[in-house]
C-alpha cells in the first residue's frame, strides 16, 4: 500500500473492498486537525432551505456564515430571487457581550419591511447559543408583529454534523407544512423532496410527472414558494430524492399526515426510470399513469441513447473516483458510470451511515477504496494509486484532481448544469467525456509531461 499515514482516529473509516466484512466507522465527528471536506450544521440547513425563493434567509451571527453562502448555488427560481441575497445580523463585539436579540429583532423588522417575504428563516450560528440569545422568542414576536411565519433554524455549527443541519431544516419546513389550503389537489399527486432545482433539474422532473398525469403539489425545496410548502400535506405521496437531506421531513409528514413516502434517485437513466415507475406503481389504480410513464421513458431514453453509446466507446475502461456529500448519490453515480463503461476505483461520502456503506461494499468491485469523511491527503493518495481518469466531487475536491492531472466533474450544489433525469444523464456523460478526453492531460506529469 502507499506510504500515507492514516490518522489513527481514521483507520476505521478507510477500507479496501474485499470479501471480508468490514465495518465502516461512520456517523462520527471528524478528527480534530483533520482537513475534513465536511461542512457544519449550518451548512446542512442552508443547503436544504436555500432554494425557497420567496423567503427571507437571515443568518444570525458574525458575517462569515452569510458571506460564504451568498449566491453560490445553482438553485434556480422561476420567480422571486430573494434567496440569492445574503442577509446577516453581522454581530459585533457589542452584541456578543450584551446579547444580539435586539439587533436580530431590528434586522428582521427592517428586512421584512423592505423585501416583503412570504416567510423568514432565521439561522442561529455558532455563537448564538453561547451568548444565550432566545431566537425562538424573537421569531415569535416578529411573527406576531409582521403576520408572516418567522421560523428559527437551530443550526449552530458545532452542534453535530451536516446531517443535523438537514434535520434542523426539516423541522423548520415542517412548521410551514399543514398550514395551507389543500382542496383541489388531485388524488394522483406527489411532493418531490430533496430536489433543489440545480440548473433547473426540478423543472425537468416536474415535466416528467406532468406527462405521467401526476400532480406535483410541492417541490422541496427546488424553486419553492412558501405557499406551496404550506399545502404540501395535501399530496398523496412523498417522493424523496437520494440524499438523506429530507428523509426526516418525509417521516414527519408520514407520522403527522399519514403520507407514505418512497425513496428514489433521478440520477442515471436506470434510476430515473425506476423512480418514475415506482411512482406510477404507487398509483396503480390509475393504469393510465403507468402507460404514460412507459411511453415517456421510452421516448426520453431513445433521445439520449445514441449519444451515450458514442461516449461509451471512448469512455469504456476509464476509472473514476467518487467523493460526495451523501452516500445515496454515490450509488447512482456508480451505476451511471458503469452504464458508460467506467469502473469506480474509489468511493466515499461525507455523511454516509452504516447501511449506506454496506450497500456500497456490495455495489463495488474488489479493491475499490471506500472512505468516510475523508481528507485531501487520503483522496490524493488513492486516486494516484488507482490511476483514476476522473474524479467526481465538489469544489473542494476539484484542485486535488486537477493538481494531479485528473479529469473532474462537479456533482455538488455549485454546478450550473442539470444532471438529473434523462437529459441530465446526457449532460453528465458529455461532461465526463469532455474532461476525460481533453488534450491538456498530455502535459500532466503523471503522463510524462514535465
Amino acid at each position, binding site marked *: 500500500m502507499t506510504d500515507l499515514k492514516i490518522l489513527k482516529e481514521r483507520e476505521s473509516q478507510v477500507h479496501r473492498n474485499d470479501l471480508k466484512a468490514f465495518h465502516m466507522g461512520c456517523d462520527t465527528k471528524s478528527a480534530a*486537525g483533520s482537513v475534513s471536506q465536511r*461542512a457544519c450544521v449550518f451548512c446542512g440547513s442552508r443547503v436544504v432551505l436555500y432554494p425557497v425563493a420567496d423567503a427571507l434567509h437571515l443568518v444570525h451571527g*458574525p458575517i462569515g456564515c452569510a458571506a460564504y453562502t451568498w449566491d453560490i448555488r445553482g438553485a434556480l427560481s422561476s420567480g422571486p430571487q430573494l434567496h440569492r441575497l445574503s442577509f446577516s445580523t453581522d454581530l459585533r463585539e457589542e452584541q456578543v457581550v450584551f446579547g444580539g436579540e435586539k439587533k436580530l429583532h431590528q434586522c428582521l423588522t427592517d428586512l421584512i419591511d423592505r423585501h416583503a417575504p412570504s416567510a423568514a428563516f432565521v439561522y442561529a450560528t455558532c455563537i448564538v447559543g453561547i451568548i444565550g440569545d432566545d431566537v425562538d422568542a424573537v421569531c415569535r414576536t416578529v411573527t406576531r408583529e409582521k403576520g408572516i411565519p418567522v421560523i428559527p433554524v437551530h443550526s449552530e*455549527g*458545532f452542534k453535530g454534523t451536516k446531517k443535523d443541519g438537514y434535520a434542523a431544516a426539516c423541522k423548520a419546513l415542517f412548521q410551514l407544512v399543514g398550514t395551507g389550503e389543500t382542496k383541489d389537489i388531485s388524488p394522483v399527486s406527489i411532493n418531490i423532496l430533496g430536489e433543489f432545482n440545480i440548473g433547473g433539474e426540478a423543472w425537468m422532473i416536474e415535466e416528467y410527472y406532468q406527462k405521467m398525469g401526476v400532480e406535483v403539489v410541492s417541490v422541496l425545496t427546488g424553486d419553492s414558494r412558501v405557499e406551496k410548502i404550506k399545502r404540501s400535506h395535501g399530496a398523496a405521496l412523498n417522493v424523496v430524492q437520494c440524499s438523506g437531506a429530507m428523509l426526516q421531513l418525509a417521516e414527519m409528514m408520514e407520522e403527522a399526515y399519514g403520507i407514505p413516502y418512497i425513496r428514489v434517485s433521478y440520477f442515471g437513466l436506470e434510476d430515473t426510470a425506476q423512480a418514475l415507475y415506482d411512482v406510477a406503481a404507487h398509483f396503480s389504480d390509475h393504469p393510465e399513469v403507468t402507460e404514460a410513464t412507459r411511453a415517456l421513458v421510452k421516448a426520453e431514453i431513445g433521445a439520449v441513447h445514441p449519444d451515450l453509446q458514442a461516449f461509451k466507446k471512448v469512455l469504456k475502461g476509464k476509472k473514476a473516483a467518487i467523493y460526495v456529500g451523501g452516500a445515496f448519490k454515490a450509488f447512482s453515480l456508480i451505476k451511471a458510470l458503469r452504464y458508460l463503461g467506467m469502473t469506480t476505483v474509489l468511493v466515499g461520502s461525507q455523511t454516509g451511515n452504516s447501511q449506506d456503506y454496506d450497500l456500497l461494499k456490495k455495489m463495488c468491485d474488489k479493491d475499490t477504496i471506500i472512505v468516510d469523511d475523508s481528507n485531501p*491527503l487520503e483522496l490524493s493518495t488513492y486516486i494516484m494509486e488507482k490511476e483514476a481518469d476522473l474524479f467526481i466531487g465538489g469544489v473542494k475536491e476539484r484542485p486535488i484532481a486537477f493538481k494531479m492531472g485528473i479529469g473532474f466533474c462537479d456533482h455538488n450544489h455549485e454546478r450550473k448544469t442539470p444532471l438529473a433525469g434523462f437529459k441530465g444523464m446526457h449532460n453528465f456523460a458529455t461532461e465526463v467525456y469532455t474532461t476525460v478526453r481533453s488534450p491538456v492531460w498530455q502535459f500532466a506529469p503523471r503522463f510524462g509531461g514535465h
Partner: protein
Amino acid sequence: MDVTYNDSATTNACKLCTPLGASLVFKGVRGSVPLMHGSQGCATYIRRYLISHFREPVDIASSNFSEDTAIFGGGDNLKQAITNVTRQYKPELVGISTTCLSETIGDDVGLILKEFKAEQSGGCLPEIVHVSTPSYRGTHMDGFHDAVAALLHALASSRGGNNGCINILPGMVSPADMRHIREIVEDFDTGCLMLPDYSETLDGMLWATYQKIPDGGIGIDEIREMGGARATIDMSRVCSEKRSGAQVLKARCNIPAHRTGLPLGVKACDRFFSTLSALTRRDVPKKYTRQRGRLLDAFVDGHKYISGKRAVVYAEEDLVVGLAAFLCEIGIIPVVCASGGTSGHLREVLEQTLPGNLKEEIRIIEEADFQDIEEAAMEASPDLFIGNSKGYSITRKLGIPLIRVGFPIHDRFGGQRSLHVGYRGTQQLFDNIVNAVLEARQTTSDVGYSYM
C-alpha cells in the same frame, strides 16, 4: 425607533471574516499549515471560498469543535488537532487562528499552547503561532494584518547587524503582484523579505506527487531575518499603525518603517520606486523607467476614451485608496469609494490622497455592504464599476461594465494571476478600463464600428 447604522442588517456583505485573512497569511509561510480553532464549517467554507479564487488546493485544518467542546472548552481539541496536523503534514509551522466560537467561550489559546508545549517537550514540534481572530471584531483585513504582526512578534528577532534586505509587507495582493514586487526589489540588487508570500503556494504548477504542503512561501528563518533588515515597506496605509507588522519590527528590532501605500497608479508607483531608490542608493533600473514611459504614453493615447467617466470602486480599503488615486490621475471620477473594511481610516486617507476639487463629487462609504453600494451607485450614474466579482449583479442591472480586480474573482478565470501593482500592473488595469469602455460603446452602438 431610532436605528443607528450598526443596528441594521448587512445585505450582501462587502467583507469576509477575520480568520480568512489570517489563514491566507499562514498560507504564505513556507511549510506552514493553517489551523482554525473552532467549528468544522469555518475551515470548510473558507477553503471553498479561497479555492474558488485561487484554483489551488487550500488545506486548512480545524480543531472541529463538538457540542461538548463548546461546553467544556477547546483545549483538548486544539492539542489533538496540532498533534494530528503535525503527524500528517510534518509542517514547519502551524498557524492557529481562532473563530468566533472559541473566542466567545473564552478559550485561552496562549495558555493551551503553553501546556501543550510543556506536555510535548520531548518531541520535535513545529513552530506554533497563534492570532486572535474573532469574526465579530473587524474584517478579513484585520485578520490578515494581525496574523502578520503575530508572526513577526513570535519570530522576528534583532540579530544585530544589517543584512541589507528590505522587508515588504504587501498586504492582501495577488500572487502575481507578489512576484512582481519581488522582481522589482531584486532588480535594485537587494534581498526581499516579503511577508506573507503566497506567490507560489497559491499559484503553483501541476504535481507529479501530491504535495502535502505546496512549495513556496517565506521561510521561518527569513521571517527571523526580517529583524535585521535595512527597512520595512508597509503597503497598507489604512491599517492602524500600532497594530501593524511594521510597528512590531520598529519597536522590537528598530527597523525603520515606510508606508508607501499600494504601488498602483503612477504617483504611488513613483513613491514606491523612489523609496527603494533612496533605501538602496541605486537608480531606478531602465526596465522600469521604460515601463513608466510606456504607461504615460498610454495614458495620453487613451485619455479621451475615459475622461470624465464615473466609476464606482469597492474593495479592501487599501486597494480602494490605490484605485481611487489612480482613477483621478487618468481623469475618471471615483464617484463612489466603498469598502466593507472597518479600519476607520479610509475617509481620512482618501481625503489626503484625492484631489481636493473632486471632494464634492466623491462619496466615501466605510463599512459598506453591497446594498449601500447599489443605492449609492443608483444615485451616482456611474459608467463602470471596479472591484471584485461580487458587484456583478449590480452592474448587470445597470448595464455597465465591471472591471474585476482584487479578491474574490469568482466569475472569471485567472484572478490569482491578475497584476495590480507596479507600472506594469497599472498598465494592465488602464488597458482593461479603456477597453471596457470601448467594448461597451461598440456593443451598445447601432453601428458597430470596427474602428474606434
